[in-house]
């Protein structure tokens, strides 16, 4: 009897320890130890019950046990009801409301309507590294799409790890989201509901936009065998579902109506007045233009004065000069020099801000004050160095060769020199008509940077330019804005910068004011009670 009393706690303890280990094994999915420890637990627990049978019998028949059992059953009942309600709600009634003013975490009515009418499966492959700060934002956005349609499948791929998928979609930018309908796919490089919904819309409506490259003035061609052609740019644009064509205005009376973007890529000869008039008319009728214009090196007079005047009307000042930067330059193996320019943050340049891209022989292209109230003109490319180290050289010899005297104040344009600008026409008059989008123009003071010659280089420091041109075309053609999402602009939420005094006031009010008031209230109560108050 005494032996049983001594041994029963031991077996009880072993049973307890073994049951903990059994649970741990269950969590770790180690089934053999799980079975062994479960068996030991049951045996030791059985021995414990056998040794303590009389005490247990008394316990089970006691009043306390009956009350305890009653409480336990009622507790299990209420926990069961709570569990049941939670399971039903989480599995079947998964409702949520985004009550934020800017609806950061839900999608607009327009997007919901498009998803509602979806009749084909769309696989969304988001190429984001784990360290990409926009990963969680895009995940939330895509989850909102999934909630609206079961035909949207979302997969996240790390572009560095899922190589096969990265190569299949030719992903070059971390943060690219691909919308694939099986036979076609669309790539989006910005995290934005408008861009996502537009990509879906383009897939289901099979929309293809047309890009025309002007010919007839010695421009870089899109076909042929020259190293100075734009065939890589053409391939890149076709990959993202643009239809690319050549256009000679000498044979036309107007720029074609189906021209979504007109590209003038480095003309070597002047564009005649008739053609300039057609381009002017096209731009006035909400046309989109990408102008890549090299400096006039061989003559003092600008051979593109007609184009320069036309752009002047659109708020762009194109200088008859050569941009020099003595600090940030790049020397090619054949001796030519490229400039490393600074990409100013914009939708077009956002993925190139930290890139090193050599632009070869550039001219200055900067915003002017012309039509300032109707046009928004912004610099997107400029030299990295300041006054004296970078400038736009205007002095030349008789044969057109630029002077090598260095920076001349009052004559040369001081650095940092603007080399690329974008123009956007005020859209308030046009936005009500959903079929038309207002004029957009991008002008860059160099055209050689996107030729196949640059692509052909074996220098790993030289990145691919085609995606950059593709980004420009996307922006010009409103490619990611085919629908206008009705959402308030969250930019109005941006906080104003505080000065030192304001920071001090905020600190004093939030850190000291409230605690001091509470402390004083406590002191008053303490003093009142000390004086005999109740």
């Amino acid at each position, binding site marked *: 009897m005494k032996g049983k009393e001594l041994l029963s706690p031991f077996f009880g303890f072993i049973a307890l320890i073994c049951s903990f280990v059994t649970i741990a094994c269950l969590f770790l999915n180690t089934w053999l130890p799980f079975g062994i420890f479960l068996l030991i637990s049951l045996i030791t627990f059985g021995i414990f019950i056998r040794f303590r049978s009389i005490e247990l019998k008394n316990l089970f028949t006691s009043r306390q046990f009956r*009350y305890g059992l009653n409480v336990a059953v009622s507790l299990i009942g209420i926990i069961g009801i709570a569990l049941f309600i*939670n399971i039903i709600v989480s599995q079947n009634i998964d409702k949520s409301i985004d*009550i934020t003013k800017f609806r950061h975490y839900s999608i607009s009515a327009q997007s919901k309507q498009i998803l509602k009418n979806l009749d084909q499966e769309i696989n969304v492959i988001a190429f984001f590294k784990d360290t990409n700060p926009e990963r969680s934002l895009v995940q939330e956005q895509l989850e909102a799409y999934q909630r609206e349609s079961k035909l949207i499948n979302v997969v996240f791929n790390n572009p560095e790890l899922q190589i096969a998928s990265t190569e299949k979609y030719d992903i070059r930018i971390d943060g690219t989201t691909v919308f694939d309908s099986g036979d076609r796919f669309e790539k989006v490089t910005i995290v934005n509901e408008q861009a996502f919904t537009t990509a879906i819309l383009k897939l289901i409506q099979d929309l293809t936009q047309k890009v025309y490259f002007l010919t007839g003035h010695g421009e870089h061609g899109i076909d042929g065998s020259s190293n100075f052609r734009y065939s890589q740019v053409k391939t890149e644009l076709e990959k993202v579902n643009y239809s690319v064509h050549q256009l000679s205005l000498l044979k036309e009376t107007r720029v074609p109506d189906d021209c979504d973007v007109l590209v003038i890529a480095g003309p070597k000869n002047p564009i005649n007045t008739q053609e300039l008039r057609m381009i002017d008319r096209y731009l006035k009728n909400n046309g989109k233009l990408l102008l890549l214009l090299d400096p006039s090196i061989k003559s003092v007079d600008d051979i593109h004065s007609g184009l320069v005047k036309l752009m002047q009307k659109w708020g762009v000042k194109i200088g008859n000069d050569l941009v020099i930067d003595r600090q940030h330059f790049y020397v090619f193996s054949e001796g030519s020099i490229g400039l490393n320019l600074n990409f100013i943050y914009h939708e077009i340049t956002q993925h190139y801000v930290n890139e090193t891209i050599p632009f070869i022989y550039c001219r200055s292209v900067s915003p002017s004050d012309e039509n300032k109230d109707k046009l928004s003109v912004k610099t997107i490319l400029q030299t990295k160095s300041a006054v004296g180290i970078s400038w736009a050289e205007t002095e030349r010899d008789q044969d057109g060769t630029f002077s090598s005297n260095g920076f001349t104040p009052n004559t040369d344009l001081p650095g940092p020199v603007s080399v690329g600008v974008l123009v956007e026409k005020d859209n308030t008059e046009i936005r009500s008509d959903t079929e038309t989008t207002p004029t957009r123009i991008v002008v860059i003071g160099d055209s050689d940077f996107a030729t196949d010659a640059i692509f052909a280089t074996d220098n790993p420091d030289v990145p691919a330019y085609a995606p950059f041109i593709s980004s420009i075309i996307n922006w010009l053609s409103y490619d990611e804005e085919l629908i206008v999402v009705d959402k308030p602009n*969250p930019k109005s939420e941006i906080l104003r910068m*505080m000065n030192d005094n304001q920071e001090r006031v905020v*600190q004093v009010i939030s850190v000291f004011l409230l605690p001091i008031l509470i402390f004083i209230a406590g002191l008053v109560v303490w003093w009142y009670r000390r004086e005999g108050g109740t």
Partner: protein
Amino acid sequence: MKKILAVCSKELYTYFVSPIAYFVCFVFSALSGFLFSVILILTSQRSGLSSIVLQTLFSQMAFILLFFTPVLTMKLFAEERKSGTIELLLTSPISDSHVVLGKYLASMTLLLIMLTLTLLYPILILFFGIIDIGLIFSGYLGLILISSCFISLGLLMSSMSRNQIVAALSSFGVILILWIVGILSNSEGSIAKILSYLSFHVHYTEFSRGIIVLKDVVYYLSFTCVCLFATVKSIESSKWR
């Protein structure tokens, strides 16, 4: 209802004549005020959004409350047991559920007062930008619901102990465990999913971002109800134990 209010007013009086309410409010407002000023100044320097300030503030405030609610609830039953007044309370003509609900309401009232003081922060943001009323509403609703869970759990722990320190530490321990199981939310497997569903933090995330999710509201309310029911049973059991 009158009986519940009577217990509630008695408890509130006890809170405010003792230094405990002032001490908790003082430390809570100093700590949340410091965090708010740091978040606001840093966000303003980076030209960030006012909603980022509020979202970060709400997340931090819920975490601070995790430490303060056990202090508010530790004495509610443990003190009565220790001083022997629990017998008077249990033999008085009010039911156990009235006692429990009265004490719960008193703690919630004190907590609401603490949260009301923090409304100063959105007002301060107004001087430097606009505020999102929807986000503020959802953030405070989340704070009230999560505090309700903390308080009901604290009441349960207090009802099971004679010692205030033991009551505070045990409720803090359980709350902390139910907070950190949320780290399993990204893990695969059904057990990880069940454990992460139990997490206070996982359910709170959406509130702090301005989204009200039905399952989160149901979780917090059902958790509070289960804890209050268990507290009533725990008090009842002291009559026959």
